[in-house]
């Protein structure tokens, strides 16, 4: 098939031109270090001429613009430089953002940990222990293990270790909060198990009222249920009514006088 020269309006031509420009630009980007000009210069250089020709077709018969090869080349180089600059700027911006974030996290973490003084004391305390009693290697190991475990080992295996009190007056005792939460949650799970197995779905339970009223139903003269009245019904309403009555009585007394 013979490909006719596309008779185009401005818009598609410009889109085509942009697309075409983009492609050589990316090619050039990829082969940044290589020679740029030796390459599809024909493509780069040829484009604008085509464009002009197409533009010419539409408008009156003007002489085609004379674009030298050098100017076109310079333009292309400008374009690619601009693109490179923008990419570099973006990269640096991202880097800075990431740096700032890291610093913020480090600060927050520092705030969470104990102040340095106490940590120093802890480490010195463990060291003095080592010096004082070489026989108590187990204790020291356990303490060290405790410190290591702050990084998050399996807490099941590690026993609840109470870190030794470090200050002279022994006014506090440091206990791992993680273990306490674990213990509470296990106790709750155990209680939930018992509750489910005794009172959960599948068990055949009934209310105390119904249970005690069974006998009443089988008497020769049937009687009402044991808790026939629901005294908890409408408590607020009854209270309001009582208050209103009191106020009404007082008002009545006043008007009578």
């Amino acid at each position, binding site marked *: 098939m013979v490909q006719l020269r596309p008779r185009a309006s401005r818009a598609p031509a410009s889109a085509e031109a942009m697309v075409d420009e983009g492609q050589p630009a990316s090619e050039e980007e990829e082969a940044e270090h290589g020679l740029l000009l030796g390459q599809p210069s024909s493509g780069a250089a040829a484009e604008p001429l085509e464009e002009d020709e197409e533009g010419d077709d539409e408008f009156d018969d003007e002489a085609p613009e004379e674009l030298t090869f050098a100017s076109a080349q310079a333009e292309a180089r400008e374009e690619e430089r601009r693109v490179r600059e923008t990419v570099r700027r973006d990269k640096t911006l991202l880097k800075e953002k990431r740096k700032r974030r890291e610093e913020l996290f480090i600060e927050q973490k520092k705030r969470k940990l104990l102040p340095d003084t106490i940590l120093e004391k802890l480490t010195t305390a463990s060291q003095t222990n080592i010096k004082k009693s070489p026989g108590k290697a187990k204790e020291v190991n356990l303490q060290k293990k405790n410190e290591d475990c702050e990084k998050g080992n399996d807490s099941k295996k590690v026993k609840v270790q109470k870190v030794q009190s470090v200050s002279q007056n022994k006014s506090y005792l440091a206990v791992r909060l993680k273990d306490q939460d674990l213990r509470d949650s296990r106790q709750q799970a*155990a209680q939930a198990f018992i509750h489910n197995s005794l*009172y959960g779905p599948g068990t*055949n339970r*009934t*209310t105390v009222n119904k249970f005690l009223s069974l006998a009443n139903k089988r008497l020769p003269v049937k009687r009402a249920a044991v808790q026939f009245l629901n005294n908890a019904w409408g408590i607020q309403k009854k209270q309001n009514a009582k208050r209103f009555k009191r106020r009404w009585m007082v008002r009545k007394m006043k008007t009578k006088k």
Partner: protein
Amino acid sequence: MGEFKVHRVRFFNYVPSGIRCVAYNNQSNRLAVSRTDGTVEIYNLSANYFQEKFFPGHESRATEALCWAEGQRLFSAGLNGEIMEYDLQALNIKYAMDAFGGPIWSMAASPSGSQLLVGCEDGSVKLFQITPDKIQFERNFDRQKSRILSLSWHPSGTHIAAGSIDYISVFDVKSGSAVHKMIVDRQYMGASKRKCIVWGVAFLSDGTVISVDSAGKVQFWDSATGTLVKSHLIANADVQSIAVADQEDSFVVGTAEGTVFHFQLVPVTSNSNEKQWVRTKPFQHHTHDVRTVAHSPTALISGGTDTHLVIRPLMEKVEVKNYDAALRKITFPHRCLISCSKKRQLLLFQFAHHLELWRLGSTVATGKNGDTLPLSKNADHLLHLKTKGPENIICSCISPCGSWIAYSTVSRFFLYRLNYEHDNISLKRVSKMPAFLRCALQILFSEDSTKLFVASNQGALHIVQLSGGSFKHLHAFQPQSGTVEAMCLLAVSPDGHWLAASGTSAGVHVYDVKQLKLHCTVPAYNFPVTAMAIAPNTNNLVIAHSDQQVFEYSIPDKQYTDWSRTVQKQGFHHLWLQRDTPITHISFHPKRPMHILLHDAYMFCIIDKSLPLPNDKTLLYNPFPPTNESDVVRRRTAHAFKISKIYKPLLFMDLLDERTLVAVERPLDDIIAQLPPPIKKKKFGT
């Protein structure tokens, strides 16, 4: 006797907590009972089933297992993962040791009493060695897949049966490995989606393992081969507990429907040697789940969610068929939870975690004997005082003038000052109470509200002087050297001169408060004291014991009174001695020195010392003699014990002034109405 207006109080919303575990100690014939709020009570079964000691509960303690080890040591384990040992002399907890296996579901002491086995949530069975002062972890057995809910030792101590969810494992103690794993059917002759929870196991000496589970089955397994021998379906709901007698010829199981079944080993025919287990007797004494049973040599003991402790002596084991062989149901507390301020007509109710202060209502109407008078002013709920912290309140008291309230928990002692302006009251706490006052077993104010007497669990008796808004520690009476006697009951004379304190075994000590020294000691009696009071002018100390004996001791003369000697010589009426519940409160009439007012849960009695004593042939429960009877008849039938059963069940009864009584009742239906839901029973026609 006189005419009295009686305030019938039913607004004390007392609900005891359900019984979770029971452990029977054969050597001392004592029963340890633990409740769902963590309280552990010790009942002395030979002292007329009286509760002689108790350890207050704690919110985080959910006891799941209780057992006695050798040397009268009591251990308990619960869902907080700790094993606790109780000190029975000092009435506190010796120590709590974490077992590191998560919540503990079951515990069993070895037959020799020197080792303790614990079954945990993570499926591990841990062995502890019992040392003279502590317990020490020995080793772990093979870890199983699901939680170990029940444990039992073989009588020789070589094997262990552990019941879990859907299976039972048999372990060898020496190696710690599981020898057999027996799978339990989820339903008797069928399939079911609900897992089968093995609530109890028992290991017999011939190698049979008895298991009870949530499908309602009792199954017999052979542990040598690991196979099922026999299966009984006895209930539609869970069977939750099992206890075997020492001779292994009978055992008892408790179901969730409230029924307790007795199984016995009977010969197949009358002269054959072959025996088989047969379900012999059902007992329906409970309405709710029976979560624990125990088997003493002569009785079956059961307790459950309906808060009753039921002791059923077995007729074939009881030697003498007298009233001792009757059913005993312990429902109401054996100590007084209510204190009364007579001047301001206030009642202080003690609950587990709070106190309530009520003012009694008043009436202006009058009527005849037996009338109900309408209230002109209703009873007023003045104060609801919550305790800080998770511990239960041990004891509390309000001063007779109504301006001081004191209560004690295990770790602290609280003293509050109340101010009354018109109808409002304001409360102010006295801070910085000394530490030695904590864990008080009994608190009492003197009649003029200037002194506070505190009996601590260390055995010491403290006297604190109160004035204005502050206090000052006056004196502490130390216990006799060598014994740490926990003082349980206190009584003070109205003139403030004498203070009586009863320990658990040494007899009642009487102290002189003015001179701050020991005055005399009432001779020890082998049954514990249940109530004590000192009469106003005569200063006679009246003591009631758990075997329903009442003594009167004259403090100034340091000897028993003549009336008391006469009563002891003649003996009490047999119906008086056969009463179930102990006397919990004694009081006196200010104008009539010959009257003593006492009450227990089902009756109240006014003893008139001027009238003759009844002998066994006379009618003890005399109704009011009608006025148209002749004087002669009345004089012949009148005797000293005027008993009335109009108000029952009574928690407290006291004389407010000369013409008014207050009776605090707690109908059983009101307690049952607040219990958890029971198992549904289908009856034909409903």
